[in-house]
C-alpha cells in the first residue's frame, strides 16, 4: 500500500526530505520568534489574547482578539482594561480597573528609587458584572501588579473565534487536520 509513497520518497532523496523538515521547523521557529519578540517589546508574557467570557459585553465578546502592553514605566489607572491571572486560577480574566491605590512603602521597608517600584493595589470589575471582582481573587484583598498580564490597547473582533470554535467543537479540529492532510497528499509538486 505504501510502496508507491516509499518509491516516491526514494526518488526525491534524503536531502529533499531533510529540506522539507527544515522548512517546517523554520515556519514553527519564526512563529515562535515573532510571538516572543512581540512579548519582549510589549513587556508581557502573552501580547495577544482571545476573549473567553462575556463579562465585558457589550465591549468584548467571546472570540475577539485583544492586543496587550505592559510597559514597565507605567502605572495602571482607573478605567484601564487589564488582563490578570490570579495564582491558582486556570484562565486569565479581562476586566476593567475600578480602584487604584498607589501605596507608599513604609519607612522601615526598602526605600524605592522610583515610585514605580512602590506597590499598587487594584480592584477590578467586569463591565457586564454587577459587582466587583473581590470574590474572584481567591482570598486576596487586592490585585497587584505582578498578577497583571497587560493592559488592553487594541481590539480586533471575531478573529480569535477559530480557537474557541475548535475548543467547543473538537470534531472541527479533526476535520481541519484531516482536510490539511488530504491536501498535503493531493498536492505533490
Amino acid at each position, binding site marked *: 500500500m505504501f510502496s508507491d509513497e516509499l518509491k516516491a520518497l526514494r526518488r526525491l532523496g534524503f536531502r529533499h526530505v531533510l529540506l522539507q523538515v527544515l522548512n517546517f521547523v523554520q515556519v514553527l521557529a519564526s512563529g515562535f520568534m515573532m510571538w516572543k519578540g512581540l512579548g519582549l517589546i510589549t513587556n508581557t508574557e502573552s501580547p495577544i489574547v482571545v476573549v473567553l467570557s462575556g463579562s465585558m459585553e*457589550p*465591549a468584548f465578546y467571546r472570540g475577539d482578539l485583544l492586543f496587550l502592553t505592559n510597559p514597565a514605566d507605567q502605572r495602571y*489607572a*482607573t*478605567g*484601564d*482594561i487589564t488582563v490578570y491571572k490570579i495564582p491558582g486560577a486556570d484562565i486569565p480574566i479581562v476586566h*476593567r*480597573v*475600578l*480602584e*487604584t*491605590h*498607589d*501605596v*507608599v512603602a513604609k519607612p522601615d521597608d526598602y526605600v524605592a528609587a522610583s515610585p514605580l517600584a512602590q506597590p499598587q*493595589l487594584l480592584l477590578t*470589575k467586569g*463591565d457586564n458584572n454587577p459587582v*466587583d471582582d*473581590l470574590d474572584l481573587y481567591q*482570598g486576596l*484583598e487586592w490585585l497587584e501588579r505582578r498578577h497583571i498580564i497587560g493592559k*488592553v*490597547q*487594541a*481590539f*480586533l*473582533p471575531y478573529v480569535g473565534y477559530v480557537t474557541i470554535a475548535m475548543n467547543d467543537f473538537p470534531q472541527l479540529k479533526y476535520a481541519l487536520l484531516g482536510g490539511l492532510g488530504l491536501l498535503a497528499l493531493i*498536492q505533490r509538486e
Partner: protein
Amino acid sequence: MHTIFSRVNNVSAFLSSCLMSLVLAVAIASALYHTYQTPPAAGVVVNSIKVLPGKGRYLRKYRSRQQQEFAFVNFNLTADLSPLFHWNTKQLFLYVSAEYTDQQGTANEVVIWDRIVRRKEDANISSTFKNKYHLKDMSTTFRNAPPAHYTLKYNLMPYVGLLAWGEAARTSEPIPFPEPHQLA
C-alpha cells in the same frame, strides 16, 4: 492559477492582505482623528457628600465584616460627548472617579459611577447622579482623608483598532469629606 484550487489559494491570500490593510487603514484613521480632535466640553459638580458608617465586605483576612465608613456622593454631570462618536466608535465607557492623596502619601483613585453609551443620541448628558459603587477609604474611615477631586473620564472603544482614554471634566476645587453621620 492553473486549477481552481490554486486560484482559490492565490486570490484568498491577496484578499486577506487587502482586508488586513483596510482594517489597518480604518484603525489608523480613527486613531489620527482622536489625536487631533478638540476635547469634548463637559462639567462635573458635586452637590453633596454624606459619610455614613456601615459594615464592609466579608474578608477572609479578618473572618468577619469590619466596621467601615461609606461616602455617598450626589453629583451633577453636563457633557456633550457626541463628537467622540465617529464611524469606528462602538461605545463610550464613561466613568466618574474620586481622586485624593492621603497623609501617608497613598494616591487613591476610586470609580464611583459608570455608564456605557452606545449611541450618539445618548451622548448628551445633563443630569444628577448618585454613586453606583462604594466609595470607601482603605483605612475604613474618612476622618483623615483630604479633600478629593472628582473627574469625569471616558474610554472610547472602537469596532477595530486602538482604544483611547481621556478626561472630560474635573471639579475645579477639591471637595472635603464631611464628618460622619452618627446613626441613632
